[in-house]
């Protein structure tokens, strides 16, 4: 190589003449994240009996839901919507995650379900408020504890016909405040044809009512993201089946449900879309969910709060202010 003094090109991208070691920054970040661990808060909403707790257990392959003791015990339907948050620290490959599952028993179970989304909305805004107060504090902690809801899994009942009135109302009210991922619960109720028809109809209805579910169209950064997200949006809502029991099928042990006419395999893409949901939620978009929550939903809340009060005193006296949606 002829030695040319100085650098080769100017402008975008300079060729380096030796190895500096900038690319190790990724490794440094990884090490830091591993040490610090990270938080993930997922909220599950849907009326009782849709297999929410089972699905969350299946997703995170451990007993992280409210009913950690399996099926037994009577599930009494509470008279009003309650918010129950359960936290666990799970570890995989040296990475620690503090997972908080926020359950909403009583949602949609009463005879009169008017405004049953109010407690949920209040809870989400309270978490934003907590974070805001910490952030605005003069002496604030190094790592603000993040209790904001990063993702809300909304469970749709597999009627096979269309969305219920309650579903539409809930999603309309909350899609602007939190990332909503609609899933079709207990999808082993439907044959493949019924499933496709139902998904198609649900998607159409969500579009008609202007409900932006995650991944939202408007937040796609570039073409690559858009393509990837488009593919996902076409496949949503995911029709899932949850199970924490294992059965023997063809010599393999699989997670599934054993019926008199066959075993429904949870991780078999021909049977249900659980694997798609898991990959989407955990393996590819976990960080994105957190970022969208922080950069967009939280910022919207913060801007509205600061504008409403003409500035927020660092130590706010009023603890229960809610932003008007």
């Amino acid at each position, binding site marked *: 190589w002829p030695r040319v003094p100085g650098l080769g090109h100017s402008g975008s991208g300079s060729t380096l003449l030796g190895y500096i070691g900038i690319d190790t920054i990724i490794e440094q970040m990884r090490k830091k994240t591993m040490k610090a661990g990270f938080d993930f808060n997922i909220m599950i909403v849907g009326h*009782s*009996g*849709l*297999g929410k707790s089972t699905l969350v257990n299946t997703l995170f392959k451990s007993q992280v839901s409210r009913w950690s003791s399996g*099926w037994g015990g*009577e*599930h009494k*339907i509470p008279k009003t919507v309650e918010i129950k948050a359960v936290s666990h620290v799970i570890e995989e490959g040296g990475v620690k995650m503090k997972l908080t599952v926020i359950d909403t028993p009583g949602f949609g*179970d*009463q*005879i*009169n*379900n*008017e405004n049953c989304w109010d407690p949920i909305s209040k809870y989400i805004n309270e978490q934003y408020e907590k974070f805001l107060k910490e952030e605005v504090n003069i002496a604030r902690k190094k790592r603000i504890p993040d209790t904001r809801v990063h993702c809300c899994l909304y469970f749709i*009942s*597999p*009627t*096979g*016909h*269309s969305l*219920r*009135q*309650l579903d539409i*109302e809930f999603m309309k009210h909350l899609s602007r405040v939190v990332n909503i991922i609609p899933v079709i619960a*207990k999808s*082993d*109720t439907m*044959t*493949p044809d019924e499933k496709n028809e139902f998904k198609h*109809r649900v998607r159409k209805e969500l579009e008609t009512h202007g409900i932006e579910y995650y991944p939202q169209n408007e937040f796609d950064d570039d073409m690559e993201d858009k393509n990837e997200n488009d593919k996902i949006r076409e496949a949503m809502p995911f029709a899932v089946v949850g199970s924490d029991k294992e059965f023997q099928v063809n010599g393999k042990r699989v997670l599934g*449900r*054993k*019926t*008199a*006419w*066959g*075993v*429904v*395999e949870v991780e*078999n893409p*021909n*049977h249900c879309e659980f694997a798609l949901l898991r990959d989407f939620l955990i393996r590819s978009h976990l960080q994105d969910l957190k970022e969208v929550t922080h950069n967009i939903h939280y910022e919207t809340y913060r801007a509205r709060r600061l504008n409403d009060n003409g500035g927020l005193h660092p130590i706010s006296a009023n603890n229960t202010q809610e932003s008007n949606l």
Partner: protein
Amino acid sequence: RYLGRAFMFGFCLQQEKLLEGYVGFANLPNQVYRKSVKRGFEFTLMVVGESGLGKSTLINSLFLTDLYSPEYPGPSHRIKKTVQVEQSKVLVKEGGVQLLLTIVDTPGFGDAVDNSNCWQPVIDHIDSKFEDYLNSESRVNRRQMPDNRVHCCLYFIAPSGHGLKPLDIEFMKRLHEKVNIIPLIAKADTMTPEECQQFKKQIMREITEHKIQIYEFPETNDEEENKMVKKIKDRLPLAVVGSNTIIVVNEKRVRGRQYPWGVAEVENGEHCDFTILRNMLIRTHMQDLKDVTNNVHYENYRSRKLAAVTYNGVDNNKNKGPMTKSPLAQMEEERREHVTKMEKMEMEMEQVFEMKVKEKIQKLKDSELELQRRHEQMKKNLEAQHKELEEKRRQLEDEKHNWEAQQRVLEQQKLDASRYSTLSRRVKKIFTK
């Protein structure tokens, strides 16, 4: 000997008497059968449940007709405003027997956000059918008595796996005394056999806890039937799956649902309880359902309605017990009570009348006195005025007299004055001569 014979005769009335030849009344059931077949049967079935629980599919499967054709607007197309009650009739013929089947559907039930009182249209419908029957029964010409009463209500429970929803409990509590309720677990292919068992137990527990009376299968004298009935009772509530698509399984054509992991057969007893439901509903207990509706639910309605009409405000609970009197005696008693009530009313009215009359008389007297008083007063006023007037007249007269007197004096003076002047002139004349 006669005493002995009489004693034996009395005894014999209870025992079965052996016939010495063929009389022929063994043919009676056949006659009944032939008449009923000619007449045809009627049956009204109501289906209640949220949309999407497979009610239409199940009805189609049960009666092997397309009562709800694919073009029938499904819930997604219907405007969800209030609960509607829709009737569809279909005439089914089989083996020379015809059945006029009426299916009452309740679209919109439990679909809104606020479902309070969504059971009211259902209750109103059932009551109106009872009322129609009551009216046609009380008519003079009873040739045509169509029986449109709801004989059976299939209530669909969503397969949540947990238990009954508040809506389910409310509905059943309000309707178990009006119609035969048969609770069904819909879309039972959602659950594994263990989950299904647990769910059924939970539901039955809640049903007994809330004292809901679902349709009870009657005990019979037959051993075989009892065994079957017990089997059914153990599997309550029935978990059903509906389908009209035919799938080939092991070279057999079965009705079922095709999943990637297998075929759920509708008519397989190990897969779901559909066959039990169908046999029970159509093949064995249809007549019993009609009888219970007629003898229990309808009679309850009737006694409540008639009691309300006659007692009219008095405590209606008097007649809610079992009907121990015959209807005729009941009517006689009602009539007597009606008559006494009438008499009482009459007496009351008379009293009221008298009182009113007294009042009126008193009033009249008072006004008379008042008038008299005023009359006196006016007279007095008049007299006073009269006196005043007299007084004034006298004064006037006096004045007149005075004035006249004065005038006379003046005249006299004038006269005097003139006489004096003439006199003085005469004197003057005399003196000047």
